């Protein structure tokens, strides 16, 4: 599930959701300025460490990554088609005459694929450690109307119930011989009508029931004044965390501008003298 939350009390869990959003932006800056695949691997290692520290089982990380592998390869291959070789030695062509393979295009390809992985790992790290209710409170703090935050919260908590209801519908239709597992995509589409129609009906019903419940629990009495039980506060940890991440990013950007480091070839050619 895209919004799975792993309960815990680690630093990542304790941070204010707003801190996490800012952290996300800072890492995005890093992703943009860093071109070196080895440095990128270093960043990935840091993220893995953060998973470990947050108490999220690495098996979860692996299951995300498995799903990313095809995309990873796609990024790698597509790069040969779009990046022109800038005077480097062409080893061979992927297709006759097009998609030349050079050291540079390979490095760029690997980097952009790794960037993609980093991006996903980071965003999942944040959703694993942030509960929906924290996100909603952050929304309220950032001045969104309580109606929006509350309805989003209800929508999210209704998801498992709706999944349950849909699987009941599917089972009921299977019991009447409905073939939902056919291969032919057109037949498959048609076979879903008996599932989708009751599904829509049940969804509308759920909507009505939720509206009725919310009304009966006095939500509409005075939503602007309602108490939000959970509080989120910018604490010392948040400042320290942001300062560290901010300094790190600023340093990287400065070094890049002043010295031109972190380019594709930086470590391989200038440090390790491999290329």
């Amino acid at each position, binding site marked *: 599930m895209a919004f799975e939350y792993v309960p815990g009390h680690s630093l990542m869990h304790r941070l204010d959701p707003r801190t996490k959003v800012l952290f996300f932006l800072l890492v995005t800056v890093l992703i943009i300025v860093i071109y070196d695949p080895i440095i990128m691997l270093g960043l990935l290692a840091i993220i893995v460490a953060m998973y470990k520290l947050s108490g999220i089982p690495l098996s979860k990380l692996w299951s995300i990554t498995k799903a990313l592998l095809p995309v990873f390869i796609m990024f790698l291959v597509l790069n040969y088609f779009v990046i022109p070789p800038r005077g480097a030695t062409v080893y061979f062509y992927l297709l006759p005459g097009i998609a030349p393979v050079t050291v540079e295009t390979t490095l760029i390809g690997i980097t952009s694929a790794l960037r993609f992985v980093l991006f996903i790992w980071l965003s999942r790290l944040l959703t694993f450690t942030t509960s929906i209710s924290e996100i909603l409170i952050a929304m309220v703090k950032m001045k969104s109307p309580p109606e929006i935050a509350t309805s989003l919260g209800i929508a999210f*908590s209704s998801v498992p119930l709706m999944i349950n209801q849909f699987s009941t519908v599917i089972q009921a239709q299977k019991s009447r011989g409905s073939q939902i597992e056919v291969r032919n995509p057109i037949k498959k589409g048609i076979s879903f009508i008996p599932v989708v129609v009751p599904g829509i*009906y049940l969804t509308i019903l759920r909507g009505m029931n939720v509206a*009725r*419940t919310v009304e009966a*629990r*006095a939500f509409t009495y005075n939503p602007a004044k309602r108490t939000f039980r959970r509080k989120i506060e910018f604490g010392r940890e948040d400042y320290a965390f942001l300062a560290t991440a901010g300094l790190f990013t600023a340093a990287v950007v400065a070094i890049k501008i002043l010295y031109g480091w972190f380019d594709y070839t930086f470590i391989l050619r200038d440090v390790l003298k491999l290329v």
Partner: protein
Amino acid sequence: MASKATVITCKNLTYTYPGTTEPALDGIDLEVQRGEIVLITGPTGAGKTTLCSSFNGLVPHFYGGTLDGQIYVLGQDVRKTTAGYLSTKVGMLFQDPSSQLISATVEDEVAFGPENLAIPVEEIEKRTDSVLDFMGLKAQKGRPPFALSGGQQQAVALAAVIAMKPEILVLDEPTSNLDPIGTVNIFSLLRRISREEENTIIIVEHKLQELVDIADRIVVIDDGKVRLEGPPREILAEDAVLLRERGLQPPQVSLLAHELRETGIHIEGIPLTIPEAFDTLSKALQTLKLPLSETKAEETKPFQATSKPIIEVQNASFQYPGGVLAVQDVSVNFYKEDFVGIIGQNGSGKTTLVKLLNGLLRPTRGIVNVFGLNSRDSPIHDLIKHVGYVFQDPDSQLFSKTVHQELSFGLKNLRVPRDQWESRINSVAKTLLIDSLLKEAPYSLSRGDRQRVAIASVLVMEPQVVVVDEPTTGQDPRKRREIMELMRMLHDKYEKTIIFITHDMDLVAEYAKRCIVMRDGGIMLDGVPHEIFLQYEELEKTHLKPPMITLLFKELGERYGLRKDILTVDEAFDYLKTKLVS
């Protein structure tokens, strides 16, 4: 204006839902005093829920429609205020527990109402903790409500209402998902709340006998009108037969006393509880030479198969992908002449077991043989030809434009030749009394008719075995019996094998020929109801209780040597008549 002690006043209250012409409430006159516990009862569709919804203003403000007459709640004219405001004073629990759970955790659910009342955080935490403690839900605090059992969900929904500390509590069938023991606990909790906090409580219930000594007043509603009103003892005792005619369920012992009295047997007073009935019958039995020494009917045959099994479950287990072992090493056979009632607590594995019978689930261990087919390597298509499965909620399967199309769905899927369709559809429709509805849209029918359509849509496939999962949940006593009569007819006339799941012990006692009691994923008892329901202690271990009449005859049997294996009012009546009239 209402006097100070009156909290609800309805005068000639009439209400019509938008898009309908028949009024749901038709001239209701009702007054409720502060601190009173009022039991509202009546058949399905009588207007009970509508009346309740008018107390917090959902009627008319949420539903629309036209409201005539007068209704004042806590001195406010309902028409001129809002549902949002009234809801701060009137807490309402709706019927279906899962429909009113909206939060990510149990704790959030209970805190939601108090948050809306703008109560300070510390106070909310205190209330949430104490209410959860009170309801025995402390361990579930951080769990998502949808993951709980039906009974626990109902307790959470009730906790969410109680945490708002409303002046008036309106509870629409608060125990429909609870086992007998849970039901008694909730009712005594309500009595405590009403005494300690001087709250007014309005309960809609079909379980009348449990509320005899808790409610101050009974209001019987039918067709949108107040039909009977008065102290529970008076109404239940004097009007027991009338109540039954209206489709309600007065205490079994009261009905028995009435029936005996009508045959000319002298019965002093109409009893409402088991001890009272024991005393009353003790007096009536004094004409006999006691003690007798009959412990059993002349011929209660133990359960015995007379043919080869049609479904064999051998050491079957089923584990859900999440790791829950729902059925554990179960071995059981089903026979052609079976009419089986499966009972057991929520989560005891009843539904999982029956889903193994038509291939909806395949055993993760062991074997299920259905008409000679191993369910593990037979396509579900072949299995459902033999075993039809009717789901509890008709709304989770009806999708067609007409009932006729709905019924042809299974035939098309099973590739039944077209020239057979009409005759099959017509004969099933006739059997289920829906032949006049074939051109109607399923969604426009009443809930009872929709259920019949759902059953018909399975029967057209002509399975030998019909599995019905909780066909009676959420229905009034009369509707429940109608469904069971239908099953009995299919069994007797069309020789169908019936397997049904229910929470209603009275129905199992009356209809089932065989009874399976499940507990913790295994089969605890399996036999004829006349033996099963005499295992009082075993049943209690899994929170089940035999019918009231059976418990009465347990007492009578122990004291006077009468037969103990009496499961229904009719049996009791016939038995006592032969003893007392001669």
